[in-house]
């Protein structure tokens, strides 16, 4: 009887260890979890860089939104900029493209956009409050928001054309 108890406890312990180890494998320990998938996109009201007027997310309700957080000092953001320029022109009538610059200065941003193209509506998050509200954990990060205002998913890496096209096909369904 005692032997069965010991074997049972040993099996339970080994099962627990196997469960913990297999659960941990294949996961990036440095990856920051994201909890807003499927949740309503937090509203914001921040300054539009070209006109200086205040813009809120609610203004774009009823249309899918691609929301890109970026900064001029971020190399990967510069490399994905042409992809976003391409996407903003390609899906001009179906999707709203918004860029949110944070952890940066207005002057730097305007100079960058003058050099590299300004097809997206660019907004300036002066105190990074919108970035914190969206659970941003680095740059660049792109949020795909459905027409009913829910975050379908976020892409936390520089976009390429295929990823952007795939994300858009999911939010314009």
């Amino acid at each position: 009887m005692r032997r069965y108890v010991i074997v049972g406890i040993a099996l339970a312990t080994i099962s627990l260890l196997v469960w913990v180890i297999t659960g941990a494998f294949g996961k990036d320990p440095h990856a920051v979890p994201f909890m807003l998938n499927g949740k309503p996109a937090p509203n914001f009201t921040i300054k539009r860089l070209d006109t200086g007027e205040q813009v809120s997310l609610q203004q774009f309700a009823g249309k899918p939104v691609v929301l890109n957080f970026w900064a001029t000092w971020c190399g990967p953001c510069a490399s994905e900029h042409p992809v976003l320029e391409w996407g903003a022109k390609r899906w001009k009538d179906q999707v709203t493209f918004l860029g949110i610059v944070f952890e940066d200065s207005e002057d730097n941003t305007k100079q960058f956009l003058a050099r590299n193209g300004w097809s997206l509506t660019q907004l300036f998050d002066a105190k990074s409050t919108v970035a914190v509200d969206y659970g941003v954990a680095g740059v660049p990060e792109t949020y795909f928001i459905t027409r009913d205002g829910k975050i379908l998913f976020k892409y936390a890496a520089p976009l390429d054309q295929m990823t952007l096209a795939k994300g858009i096909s999911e939010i314009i369904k």
Partner: protein
Amino acid sequence: MTAPLALLLVTLAQSGYAPTRMGLAPLEQQQEERVQRLGKQLRCPVCQGVSIADSPSSMARAQLDKVRELVKEGKSDQEIYDFFVSRYGEWILMEPTKAGLNAVLWVGPVLLLLFGISVVVLLSRRQRGAVDVTFGTTAAEPNPSAPPPAHADAKPAPAPAMADDDPFLAQVRADLEK
């Protein structure tokens, strides 16, 4: 020497940089102490194992500003933690909560230690019992392999009760009595 230095300076001047941004002004002492205490419990997402109160990064400052804003609004500690957990999950907490599956983290090591101790105790008891049965002796009894007593008429020590059924020991005992 001058040329590489000049090249380095030009490269640095042309490369991008993240402008430093000052955080919000501290609140009143009591509220600011609370902000710092809460900030020490929240992990900086762009650092390595550092809280937002200890990180010099601009993003961490922005998050600490959010804590200030929520403290100013009169939110409770739990509501402030919930705000960050709802965005970054429990990963954001420097100390995991002691509820649900996390309880395994807190109780598991203690249970494993107790289990290990009980296994060691059980095995050592069993081993001692096996030694006693094999040699038919206890620590207080004389060693059977030791030389016989000096007196010729001295009787050998009585065998322990447990070994009475052992035919080998019975034979040895009979030979000694001859």
